[in-house]
């Protein structure tokens, strides 16, 4: 391969790499999802019995239960 051709190929590779980096950086702040933790309370003060299914957000006579979704931060890369 000629020297000039090799240089042209290298320049194209670098430009592609730079575009990848720019696109990657620009996507960091693009994901914003609002989270409003669900809070349910049926505080009976001095309850003796309660039933809570941690998966269905159903509570009886507990002071508090909050379920919050977990989501990977957009600024953390793999």
């Amino acid at each position: 391969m000629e020297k000039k051709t090799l240089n042209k190929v290298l320049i194209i590779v670098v430009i592609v790499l730079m575009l990848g980096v720019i696109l990657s950086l620009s996507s960091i702040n693009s994901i914003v999802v609002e989270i409003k933790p669900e809070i349910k309370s049926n505080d009976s003060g001095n309850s003796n019995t309660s039933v809570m299914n941690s998966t269905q957000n159903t509570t009886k006579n507990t002071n508090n239960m909050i379920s919050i979704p977990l989501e990977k931060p957009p600024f953390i890369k793999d």
Partner: protein
Amino acid sequence: MKTKIFVALITLVCAVIFLTGNASAAFATSEAGISAYVNVGTSINLDQAASVYKIIEDRTSTYIIGIVEVPNANDYEQPHVYTSSDGWVMAYYAKEQPRALIMPWGQFDTNNPDTSIMSNTRLEEALSGVSTVVGVAYSSIKPNTKYYDFQYPAANGLTLISESRPNNGVDSFRFRVPTEYVLYDASWEYYSYDGCDGVVGAGYCGPLRSNFQLDGNQLSGTDGVISHNSISDGGSLKDERYFGTISALTKDVLHKGDLVYNPISTDVGSSSIAIVLIYKQP
């Protein structure tokens, strides 16, 4: 020749940008456990942000990592905070610490606690500290706050269960984790105020009188539970807290929690428990 040098320099710059962008991921996946994060909506002056840190553990031109104090927490309970100049703030506990440390006991009346009025977790209290010092009211960005557990990347949910008992007696509750859920982590923090008023001596107060029992086993010192330290108020142990992880929590079984408050003399103070579950919901 000149072209080759140019190409090499450009490649080097690209590599530096790429590696710098991933620096935050390295610390988070190797050090962090439960985390809360938010973008304050503007770039952050790190000199300004640094003023709210009690301890700065690492600082570069683009971020700070350190300890930001939250109310009514001992040294073990103080969260770490990552603040980036691009506006992101993340509060987290180390991966080995119980997730239940997020419970903010300082927000409640110690003689008549109502945990349903909880406004922010301890992690959010730390986020609030940073956002306030950089001029952004946390209440305006709180709805954008999200959570993540770096040790359980497949987990998609966290549930915080809390109960309190303001006077002599027992409060009980039950909870169940369905079979179809993947349970990654279960942890707890027990908090008692004035649980043994008038009595001096560790080992007699708190756990032996006021305590929390899961399925009939007192959590402090129970098999499968790792307990940590407590803090005291003078010699009377007025402010006690115990925390740890539950190594095995059988699914599809109704587990019973008994919260005991048994003050020795005057019926003031309270007994409280927080349990945090990290799981994957189908």
